[in-house]
């Protein structure tokens, strides 16, 4: 058939070709291997080299991981056990140190009979965060999310229940002020009034009221000193606070940086540039040492609280820049369309601008989260016992003097699990928010 029309210029197709399966070399596992591993000589050499590296690493690593001791009570005993089991000259991991100390690595020096409190706080944390992370989780859990910061803090530190309730009431009063004043005066007046009400409550009224309630209805958990906090519990406490605080704060800073109001803009730019220009360690030293100098003597401003604030501010500055990047990527037409439809500034931000800007910034936001979470290990420098600080403490025990890889390996693995989950979640979120091209 092809011969008949080859000579003529006019050509009309009279039969349509059916669809055919691709040849095996273009699809299926063989094709995959060929295109991904052995396409061309350079690719082939790289593949073989990589395989060799992986192979020799595993040959070294796997025996060390497997030929290990789980039961010893000191490093020397570990070595002896391994030699006894696997023969002279074998070295292996001494997992016994993890087995003996894992509770300490998780809870620090938190009283062991009270372990249930941070554990319960952690479980509740999962329930409090779930409705934010996943759409299909019942919305009712959001009530837990709202009270969680206070409930969690109470479980961790203990003491009278009236203190966290009092702190919570500050927000309630602020909210009521906004509702009440907002309908009568402008939004800015309402916001200022709300802040004033909250601060007056926290600074002057809350103390006596809390004391009153405490005396008439004493309801308290055994208090736990901040000094006893440590391990992954401390990392998670600081990390989660910083993550939860830095996103809203960062958004506000990014918006402030774009503001037309000169003072707001200058303040935000100044704050962001200052914090980004200073190492986190410096801020932590400020928190641990310098603040004591400035605060009136006798004030007991919890060290962990100070560190949480500093880390949050630090993360917020970075977050602000990430969010600003997302804002800058939005076409001007989005603002104009929102304006033209009559949406005011905050509604436009909330409904149109932020959902898109944050979506664009997800990779950057999650990178910042991951960075902050890992940066919590820096608190060991000012003497807080995060996992790294604890590992030093463990190694200074004569029984475990010289254990390095096992401890750091375990800590690294735990951090990896947290950070990798965040990274996977961000990919899930990006995929979920995909709405067609553009």
């Amino acid at each position, binding site marked *: 058939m092809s011969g008949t029309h080859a000579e003529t210029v006019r050509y009309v197709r009279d039969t349509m070709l059916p669809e055919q399966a691709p040849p095996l070399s273009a699809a299926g596992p063989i094709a995959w291997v060929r295109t991904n591993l052995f396409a061309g000589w350079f690719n082939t050499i790289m593949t073989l080299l990589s395989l060799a590296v992986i192979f020799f690493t595993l040959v070294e690593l796997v025996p060390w991981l497997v030929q290990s001791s789980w039961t010893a009570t000191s490093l020397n005993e570990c070595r002896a056990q391994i030699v006894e089991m696997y023969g002279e000259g074998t070295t292996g991991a001494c997992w016994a140190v993890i087995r003996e100390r894992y509770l300490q690595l998780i809870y620090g020096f938190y009283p062991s009979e009270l372990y249930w409190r941070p554990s319960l706080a952690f479980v509740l944390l999962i329930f409090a965060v779930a409705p934010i992370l996943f759409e299909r989780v019942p919305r009712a859990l959001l009530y837990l999310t709202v009270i969680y910061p206070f409930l969690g803090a109470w479980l961790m530190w203990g003491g009278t229940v009236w203190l966290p309730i009092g702190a919570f009431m500050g927000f309630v009063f602020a909210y009521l002020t906004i509702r009440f004043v907002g309908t009568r005066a402008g939004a800015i007046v309402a916001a200022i009034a709300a802040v004033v009400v909250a601060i007056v409550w926290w600074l002057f009224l809350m103390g006596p009221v809390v004391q009153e309630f405490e005396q008439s209805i004493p309801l308290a958990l055994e208090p736990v000193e901040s000094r006893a906090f440590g391990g992954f519990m401390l990392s998670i406490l600081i990390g989660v606070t910083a993550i939860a605080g830095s996103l809203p704060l960062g958004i506000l800073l990014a918006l402030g940086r774009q503001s037309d109001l000169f003072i707001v803009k200058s303040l935000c730019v100044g704050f962001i540039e200052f914090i980004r220009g200073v190492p986190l360690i410096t801020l932590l030293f400020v928190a641990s040492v310098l603040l004591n100098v400035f605060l009136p003597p006798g004030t007991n401003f919890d060290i962990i609280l100070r560190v949480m604030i500093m880390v949050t501010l630090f993360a917020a500055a970075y977050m602000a820049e990430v969010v600003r990047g997302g804002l800058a990527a939005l076409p001007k*037409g989005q603002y104009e369309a929102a304006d*033209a439809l*009559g949406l005011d500034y905050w509604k436009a931000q909330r409904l149109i601008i932020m959902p898109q800007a944050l979506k664009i910034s997800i990779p950057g936001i999650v990178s910042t989260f991951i960075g902050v979470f890992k940066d919590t290990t820096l608190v060991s420098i000012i003497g807080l016992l995060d996992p790294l600080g604890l590992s030093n403490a463990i190694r200074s025990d004569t029984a475990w003097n010289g254990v390095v890889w096992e401890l750091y390996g375990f800590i690294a693995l735990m951090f990896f699990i947290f950070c990798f989950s965040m990274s996977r979640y961000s990919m899930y979120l990006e995929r979920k928010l995909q709405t067609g091209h*553009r």
Partner: protein
Amino acid sequence: MSELSTNPTGAAGTADPTHLTDQVAIQITNMNKWYGAFHVLRDINLTVREGERIVIAGPSGSGKSTLIRCINRLEEHQSGQIVVDGIELTSDLKNIDKIRREVGMVFQHFNLFPHLTILENCTLAPIWVRKVPRREAEETAMHFLEKVKIPEQANKYPGQLSGGQQQRVAIARSLCMKPRIMLFDEPTSALDPEMIKEVLDTMIELAHDGMTMLCVTHEMGFARQVADRVIFMDQGQIVEQNEPEEFFNNPQSERTKLFLSQILGH
């Protein structure tokens, strides 16, 4: 020139008065605007009556977009007066909000919200600005989506629609706010030729429903068919305005003649 601009409705008012009322929808007097030191709009005077359909034409950079963007305060004017629906545009935010509720706008590049479905695009402003209950807003949205002939796309995202469909959604989105005035800024100039017609048809239908419309467009066929008045702008000024037949067949100013010969010539 000044005579025409101070008596803007003169010619068109007598031509086809059936759908026109005596109500003034937009009144612009001696309005000036600068971008920095650049004088974009110079002494603009314009009265638009309710139900009137006006087409604004002119060479690129003549200030057409700037003029209609001043009407809903996407751009701020520096002197003179703009009164929309009896409300004067000043820096008073309350007035701006009121006016934006009454004035719909359709952009060259649609500016749909890509993270919301078509239906959500259409219900967002009614729900959040006009405080319409969601059910009712959705019914209204479906009504207007049917009017622009794409109800079946309601649950898709803007990115999944063709340009012409997106522009029709943009029109429906504006209509859902039940505006009394519609502004169009070159609604068809980002579209492929075969999609221009579907958007123009929608606009023509809207015109027949009696909507007050200001359209910046180069579609002269559309101007002839529906406009009560064609306004020609150049260098930030209204150079000539007339009813379409007169405007096209018997242009007065040299600039208009040159412009018409350029866009109609080939």
